[in-house]
């Protein structure tokens, strides 16, 4: 711990005393096996405020909130929650049922909905209005509509959840929690799956709930969200609470410093500077920098999946040497399938993929790699790493045939690992450690080191900084820019618009499996891209 934690500004400013607190967690510890998720974590949330709980990935935010919601029992410390009369009661170690009864509800990152059931049925599940022994459907729909109007959470009460967009499914999750009587609402990274417009709508809902006396804890690591919507901020680092501040008295830079424990360059600073053309490389349409020929070229690419036809629906573009093409869009609009098709992991229905002029559409994954294609996959836990393999073994995944024919050359693998661990600053530095033992940021550095620490011509970078701490984001962005400057072609796919804006030379928006817009960086902004991301604007060619 570096900075002292100031007393909670809110309670010291307004003479409300302990009774005004909705939640008080003190000195909470939580240990999983040999991993310490929380220690000395504390949190004070005043009633009727929007409280942002921020920290890097792995800082222990979700764990702390799951303790509050009763999913985990803490190994130490106390948890107090205000009851209906506003009196704090010790609830340390309660279970989820008790938490729900006491009005504490958590909306998780992964939805827990039953897809074939309707919105109303999902919302009332477990507390159904009954008409004798059977579910009273009309009453359920009425209740949901009433709640929906009161909170501004717009949903179609009678539609099956399976047909909903991600944003609407999330609203259903929130409604479900509120229906169960939540007065204290915990949201775990709610904006990861939302378009900018949906994010703004969510903020409106949270403000409405606050006005109605609700208390909200928002887990996030996005600083712009914190500044937009929160009243108070608690910062966690490495399982501990390291700072507490009032939003209006602080700045993103100060929060970032508390999160990481040192000065960092923020993505927003860069994208802002890039827009203004102040100091940072100005790039984009005018061809400020000379570009080489097309290294990656797609023509009329179509991909069908067993579940859905035309997930990628006639996509074509080219990326020149020394160029980063960013693909923005709400997740689930075909970006995943597009990248996997280029990488050879998903079959292509029709169309062509050329790498440096050569058709690679028919090649195996291995042959594409040897042809100079590097791929940072969006899901490092599923695709990018064999979690139980050592760092050294993970650093050769996909390149194993270059490390021996029959017998793998253990010495070369170790030497290769040592080199990459130093060059890409992977910590801890022991090549024999399993990848599972590393933090998210360092796991991603293994992937980055493997894919970028070798000869390649084209890089597919899919959500390269998802779930990665601020310090590692800076590092990864640096490497991607450097690859571009070395004359590689980069296809960057990210759900994080700030990242797209900060890195790309040209920006495409994917919607419904098609390229809805393709524009130079200089013409793009969150506002101009937003309509394309939701399909509100028609298609627009470059």
């Amino acid at each position, binding site marked *: 711990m570096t900075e002292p934690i100031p007393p909670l500004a809110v309670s010291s400013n307004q003479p409300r005393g302990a009774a005004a607190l909705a939640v008080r967690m003190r000195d909470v510890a939580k240990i*999983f*096996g*040999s*991993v*310490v*998720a*929380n220690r000395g974590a504390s949190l004070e949330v005043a009633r009727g405020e929007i409280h942002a709980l921020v920290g890097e990935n*792995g*800082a*222990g935010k*979700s*764990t702390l909130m*799951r303790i509050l919601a009763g999913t985990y029992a803490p190994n130490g410390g106390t948890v107090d929650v205000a009851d209906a009369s506003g009196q704090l009661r010790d609830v340390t170690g309660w279970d989820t049922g008790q938490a729900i009864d006491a009005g504490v509800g958590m909306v998780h990152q992964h939805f827990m909905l039953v897809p074939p059931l309707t919105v109303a049925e999902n919302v009332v599940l477990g507390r159904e209005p009954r008409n004798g022994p059977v579910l009273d459907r009309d009453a359920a729909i009425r209740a949901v509509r009433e709640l929906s109007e009161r909170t501004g959470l717009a949903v179609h009460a009678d539609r099956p959840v399976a047909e909903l967009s991600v944003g609407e499914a999330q609203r259903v999750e929130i409604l479900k929690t509120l229906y169960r009587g939540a007065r204290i609402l915990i949201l775990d990274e709610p904006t990861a799956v939302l378009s900018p417009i949906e994010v703004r709508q969510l903020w409106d809902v949270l403000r409405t709930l606050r006005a109605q006396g609700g208390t909200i804890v928002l887990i996030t690591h996005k600083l712009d969200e914190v500044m937009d919507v929160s009243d108070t901020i608690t910062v966690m680092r*490495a*399982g501990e609470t390291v700072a507490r501040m009032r939003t209006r008295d602080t700045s993103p830079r100060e929060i970032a410093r508390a999160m990481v424990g040192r000065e960092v360059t923020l993505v927003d600073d860069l994208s802002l500077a890039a827009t203004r053309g102040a100091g940072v490389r100005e790039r984009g349409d005018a061809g400020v920098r000379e570009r080489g020929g097309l290294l990656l070229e797609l023509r009329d690419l179509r991909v069908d999946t067993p579940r859905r036809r035309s997930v990628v629906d006639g996509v074509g573009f080219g990326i020149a040497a020394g160029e980063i093409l960013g693909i923005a869009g709400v997740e689930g609009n075909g970006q995943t399938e597009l990248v996997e098709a280029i*990488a050879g*992991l998903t079959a292509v229905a029709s169309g062509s993929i050329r790498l440096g002029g050569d058709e690679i559409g028919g090649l*195996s*994954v*291995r042959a594409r*790699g040897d042809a100079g294609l590097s*791929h940072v*996959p969006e899901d490092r836990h*599923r*695709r*990018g*790493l*064999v*979690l*139980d*393999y*050592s760092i*050294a*073994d993970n650093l050769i*995944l*996909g390149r*194993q*045939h270059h*490390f*021996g*024919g*029959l*017998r*793998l050359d*253990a010495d070369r*693998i170790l030497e290769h690992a040592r080199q990459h661990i130093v060059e890409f600053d992977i*910590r*801890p530095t*022991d090549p*024999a*450690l*399993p990848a*599972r*033992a*590393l*933090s*998210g940021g*360092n796991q991603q550095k293994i992937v980055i080191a493997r894919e970028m620490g070798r000869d390649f011509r084209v890089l597919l970078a899919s959500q390269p900084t998802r779930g990665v701490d601020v310090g590692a984001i800076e590092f990864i962005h640096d490497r991607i820019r450097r690859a571009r400057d070395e004359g590689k072609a980069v296809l960057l796919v990210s759900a994080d618009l700030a990242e797209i804006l900060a890195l790309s030379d040209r920006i495409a928006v994917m919607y419904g499996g098609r390229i809805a817009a393709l524009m130079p960086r200089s013409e793009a902004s969150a506002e101009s891209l937003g309509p394309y991301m939701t399909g509100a604007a028609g298609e627009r060619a470059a």
Partner: protein
Amino acid sequence: MTGTEAIVPPAPPTSAQPDSAPPVRAGRVTEALLPPLVAILIALVVGDLLILTFGQSPAEVYRVLLAGTWGNAYGIGQVLYKATTLTFTGLAVALGIRAGLFNIGAEGQLAAGGFVAAVIGLLVPAATPGVVAALVCTLGAAGGGGVVGAVPGVLRARFGAHEVITTIMLNFVVLALLGWIVSAHLHVPESLHTPEIRSGAVTRLSDIFPVFHGSAANLTLLLALAAAAGVGWYLFRTRRGYELRAVGLQPDAAEYGGVDVAGVRWRALALSGALAGLGGVNFVLGYKHYYEEGFATGAGFLGIAVALVGRNNPWGVVVAALLFATLSQGGLAVNALVPKQMVEVLQAVVILAVATAVPSVRHAVRTAAAGLVRTGAKRS
């Protein structure tokens, strides 16, 4: 490659991982040894209770059990003989699990291997040098088991048919087919076995050390040790082994790493079948010199227990095979005091205890179960 990382069981998923990694290797040895030891301890306690219900003294029963197995050369020989077959079937199952495949067909693969070895032994000219004949018969055993293993492998690779179902069903097909061939065409009158092989018998241990007189132990046990070493080398030192384990741990990551996942799967099952088939050599070439229906009934299924207790590590499999062989042989020794089925109960308790206590085993069982559910869901 370090060759050791795979022994570490998957850690429970954690929502938070601090930058300083947990001390993984310090606890590795205890982590590897403790659960099986605890499992055996639990089995002993349950055994004590069982023995007491038969009105016997546990100490006495265990004394007799040890005296009848490790207490004399004949007993040791019998344990080694049984452990040899179990090592092969245990290695077969372990190799499958390393590739994420649950081979429950070792029973049929073992029989097929023994049968092919016996038939080749019948076909070779009597004048063939013993070593050459033994070599050909051994290759035949591996081939026989391998073909039986390859069938579910190809079914999985081509059609996605789950190997748990296909391997278990193929057991019945193979055993029935062999039973028919032997009884209809090949048997010696008044018996259920084939004629003796003309050449290729493997030297008995008692031919070298007369003290083992009467026991079935033979030099096939060297082949078993070589197989364990070979499997260890293959899994942890070769590129194919690297790819096979990647497929077993995370098929999606293996696919991303350019591995032909379907190809690895069918080859792994074929190899697994070949290992089980080699177990037939022990009986056919080393002991009776003919194929007999049911010559090793249960050894294939027990191979699953051996692999689980041995934690899918080749040398762990050897140790576990010795343990189960001791229990099995000991059952005969204590038969006068308690029913020999008591030992089977002990084996079952060991398996149950290991299956619940060892994370990697739980993981393997869960993976197989999840795969089955997925297959079932696809069919319906």
